[in-house]
């Protein structure tokens, strides 16, 4: 019941709102058909946010999967202190995203940030970079913050996947003289693929709705260079109070998420067919 009223009803209601010109300022509330969607398709700020969101999702999911896999492979090995490393990995995950955002704001501060200090002294840059203040670097730095926060969690998921790979299979390959790389490529990776796809799907859907990081770190700026669909939608809803148009943005976003989920599921089904 509670789930139904707090989740399903608002979704249906949101889709309905997207066909109206509901506004809390003008008090309009009429059915306008697909007018909002026509406006949307011609709105450069929507497409700007759409591309940023797609880029953010692709880059962060890709990096998190890759780095997460490397981390999982390391943690898969027995070494002393493994428990501490595994526990430390939960720190970024447990932190409120708002705190992560503020923390990265400080680390990458243009004047006194430690990152600038380190890079400057390592000779990698020759003057302080205004990471979050410059359109060229802002989105990349936000992606980095997201990678920091979520990669450890990805690594944990992949670690559980890796641990289900039968040890006997790996032992047998070792006895046959297979190298670590061959074992990874021919045994572990194929068996891990379903886990990779599911974890990737969860991450991609999550990354696609990124809000806290962007809202707190840059608010979508500078010059709209970090605007994403969630922040754009939030601004239209709560700054201009155009609930009709804002709902059209979030509904369009919901649709894109559905497509992402579908693509992953197709891959997954194909993969499962191949392995069974």
């Amino acid at each position, binding site marked *: 019941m509670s789930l139904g009223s707090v989740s399903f009803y608002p979704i249906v209601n949101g889709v309905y709102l997207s066909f109206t010109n509901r506004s809390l300022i003008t008090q309009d509330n009429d059915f306008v058909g697909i007018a909002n969607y026509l406006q949307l398709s011609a709105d450069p700020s929507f497409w700007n946010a759409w591309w940023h969101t797609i880029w953010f999702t692709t880059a962060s999911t890709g990096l998190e999967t890759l780095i997460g896999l490397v981390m999982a492979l390391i943690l898969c090995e027995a070494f002393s202190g493994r428990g501490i490393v595994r526990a430390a990995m939960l720190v970024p995950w447990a932190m409120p995203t708002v705190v992560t955002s503020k923390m990265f704001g400080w680390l990458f501060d243009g004047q006194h940030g430690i990152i600038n200090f380190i890079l400057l002294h390592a000779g990698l840059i020759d003057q302080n970079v205004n990471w979050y203040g410059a359109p060229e670097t802002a989105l990349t730095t936000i992606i980095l913050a997201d990678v920091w926060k979520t990669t450890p969690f990805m690594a944990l998921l992949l670690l559980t996947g890796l641990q289900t790979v039968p040890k006997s299979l790996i032992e047998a390959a070792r006895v046959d003289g297979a190298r670590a790389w061959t074992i990874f490529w021919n045994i572990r990776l194929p068996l891990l693929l379903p886990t990779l796809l599911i974890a990737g799907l969860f991450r991609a859907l999550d990354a696609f709705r990124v809000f806290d990081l962007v809202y707190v770190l840059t608010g979508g700026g500078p010059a709209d260079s970090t605007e994403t669909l969630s922040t754009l*939608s939030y601004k239209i809803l709560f700054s201009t109070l155009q609930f009709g148009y804002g709902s059209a943005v979030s509904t369009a976003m919901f649709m894109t998420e559905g497509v992402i989920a579908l693509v992953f599921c197709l891959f997954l089904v194909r993969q499962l067919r191949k392995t069974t």
Partner: protein
Amino acid sequence: MNERSAFQSIMIYFGALLILIWSAGPFLWQFSTSFQHDKALTEGTPSLIPDPFTLEHYYNAFVEKGLHHYVLNSLVVSLATTALCLIVGSLAAFALSRLDVKGRFGILMVILSVSMFPQIALVGPLYLIASDLGLLDTYRALIITYLALGLPLVTWVLFGYFETLPREIDEAARIDGVGVIGLLWHIILPMSLPSLVTTGLLAFITAWNEFLFALAFTSDRDSQTIPVGIANFTNQYYVPWGDIAAASAVVTVPLIVLVLFFQRHIIEGLTQGGIKE
């Protein structure tokens, strides 16, 4: 045990060290920042060890910015959410696991699909509802919303756990004349304590960390939660990094202690809820 070459061992320890620095480093830096004078923070050579050590940022955060208001709001909302999630979630999981519910697999899939909804698509319509019901700036609006956010995971993990408890217990209880609710209350729940602790903690963390709904539904410090409070710390003219670091430490350190304490359970709980369906 297979023999590793010295090179492989070195690589593994080097990798582990990198993971450790990567995961804990930024937080340690932030934590250290909270004990340093503003002057030290803007100096040419940053230092990880606070010298001189100061608590002025904690003083600022509580006395000037009223951090305790936000902490109190967050505590009330998160604890209420946790309690409700556990009550509703365990009832739902129990019904799906032990009672003869038709189409229970379908129901479980629907519950899971709810957690996939983009929250930004919910926030507009929910805002209108909360506004119509006069629930803006109240704890209730947040608790109801967080209950819906937390329930899918809680129900899934508890369902998975209940399923592992042997049915023979049910029958033995029934023969002893224990009713359905008695079975849940006196037998299943006490046996599921580890799972209840984990899912409760997860629900608590979800509510404690949530930002979007809290931002939209609340507008004053009598109802705003910590994430919103911290997001608004920045004043127009300069960013008080030290004060922000202090507030961050206040909200994060207890969480990290809890998480480290329960880490084994959490990892199990998360991976069950996240991947095994």
